[in-house]
């Protein structure tokens, strides 16, 4: 009985010793997470005001970013979404920093990997954002030029240009995220190359007669020139 009690006491003692060792770490983790949470909230509030002052929502409306969000079924204000994303990013980072205070090697490695991945995520988002705006500008420029040239399928052409650019931008963003880069590049090459080849073939086949006429006209002009030289 005595031995049995001793065993229980030893186990409890071990737990106590372990808790004594780990308690400061847990306390540090909770403090970091709480502090991070408060900081994230303050930052979200400041960012909201800043974006409101910048009239970010109105800018997003004009740039068509809001329209994309609506198509995706998101009905919050663009500024609100940005502020929420930043809030959650800060919260996740503070949770990770908090967890690292536990000094558990596996978690520390995981956190390092996630933190190293963040710049990729950020640059992918930037590529998507600016790529979308650029695609919009180029498609609009194509539309205006084609309409002014009297091209019948101006809208279709502009949409094709927009589609091609969107495919390009998506491929760039996925590559940045390291999502199966080999497959992405291969798929992009196949799709993009296929479209270009299809366009080249259709243009080539459709333009056979025109090309023949141009060549015949050119050769006839040369013959005519020769005749004059003889005279």
């Amino acid at each position, binding site marked *: 009985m005595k031995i049995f009690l001793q065993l229980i006491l030893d186990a409890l003692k071990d737990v106590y010793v372990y808790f004594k060792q780990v308690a400061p770490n847990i306390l540090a983790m909770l403090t970091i997470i709480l502090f991070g949470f408060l900081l994230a909230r303050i930052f979200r509030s400041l960012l909201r005001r800043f974006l409101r002052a910048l009239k970010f*929502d*109105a800018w997003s*409306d*004009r740039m*068509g970013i*809001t*329209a994309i969000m*609506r*198509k995706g079924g998101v*009905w919050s204000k663009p500024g609100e979404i940005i502020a929420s994303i930043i809030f959650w990013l800060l919260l996740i980072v503070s949770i990770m920093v908090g967890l690292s205070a536990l000094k558990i090697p596996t978690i520390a490695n995981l956190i390092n990997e996630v933190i190293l991945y963040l710049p990729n995520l950020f640059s992918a988002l930037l590529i998507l954002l600016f790529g979308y705006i650029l695609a919009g500008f180029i498609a609009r420029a194509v539309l205006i030029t084609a309409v002014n040239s009297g091209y019948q399928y101006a809208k279709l052409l502009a949409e094709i240009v927009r589609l091609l650019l969107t495919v390009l931008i998506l491929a760039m963003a996925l590559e940045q995220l390291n999502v199966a880069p080999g497959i992405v590049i291969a798929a992009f090459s196949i799709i993009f190359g296929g479209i270009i080849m299809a366009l080249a073939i259709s243009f080539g086949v459709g333009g056979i007669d025109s090309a023949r006429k141009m060549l015949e006209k050119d050769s006839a002009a040369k013959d005519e020139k020769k005749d004059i030289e003889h005279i």
Partner: protein
Amino acid sequence: MSDFHQNGIITTLHRLGKPSLQRLEAELVEYAKFRPVALVLPALYSEFEGPAMAGIVEELTKVKFLKEIILVLDKASEKEFRKVQEFMAPISSEVKIIHNDGKRIGEIFDTFSRNGLEVGLRGKGRSAWLAYGYVIGRGQSDVIALHDCDIVTYNREMLVRLCYPVVNPSVDYVFCKGFYSRITDRMHGRVTRLLITPLIRSIQTLRGPLGFINFLDSFRYPLSGEFCMITDVARVNRIPWDWGLEVGSLAEVYRNYSPRRVCQVDIAENYEHKHQALSEHDPEKGLLKMTIDICKSIFRTLASEGSVFSQGFFRSLSVAYLRQAEDTIVRYEADAAINGLEFDRHEEAKAVEAFTRGLIMAAEAFIENPMGTPLIPNWNRVISAIPGILEMMQEAVDEDNR
């Protein structure tokens, strides 16, 4: 209407003999293949609990030429919106409901506001304007017809006659306004009978012929809420969101189109709908509010045409109007007598007194601020300010209707 007199500078299409509804409908079905028609219905949820809406829906189930029906629902909760969806379900044409109090449409209104587009307070004007945007965005209809949802005597012939002059390519009007008489055991339509007509006649007396006043005087029922137009009119017109909606819309049509392409059509033998209280002592509601808004809209339109107004002019106008309106009462008394209708001369005189007060208040407000309430911007400007707005609206409405 029994006469065939053409008055004013627009065309009047009378009801002569007994026109066949079947023939008109058959023609419209053919014409609508090339000129699809959208019907816009601005409605409050309370109207679905009233006596008119069931009859309107029943009649609309028989209409075959409509491409789409856009119901703009105001003052309705989510649950009530779903009830309205069920209510409209028997109609075979495609029905889309714009839920003004829904989260998504609320966000659309926020989008207008943060981009500096003032679309006014809730009401028929704003609802109609929103529906026009939706129809333009969908791009499925070339013609838009609109009527109120409180018509107790509704018959699909009203809609058929309203649409025919715009949809028929050989008649080819760009804007058509409905007219009718509003009689039960007495005459209704006090604002048209005792305010609009005497007022425009008084302005003619004081100022001589004025283009817009002649145009307005050509309409037999300028305040009727039923009209039909080509979609382009909805795209370029700026409309007031208050009670000046009807007069303001006519002013825009006058400004943008030749009167040769504008007509009015006799759509019903009789028409009965909700009656507004006179509210003679409260300028914020009832017919007094309506009077002020309508008068301001007329003054503003005339000023934009180059008329100069002074305190002296308004003093003369109020006196001239009062005399005209009193003469008009005598005319209607005789009209009522020959037709065996009740006629309360005292009530009519009280209405004229209230209208005179409203006219003076409108004049004061106009002198103080001639710009008055801003008009809702036209859709061309809205699209220019927010290029994706039509897609956003479609997304909002489609999502709500899912």
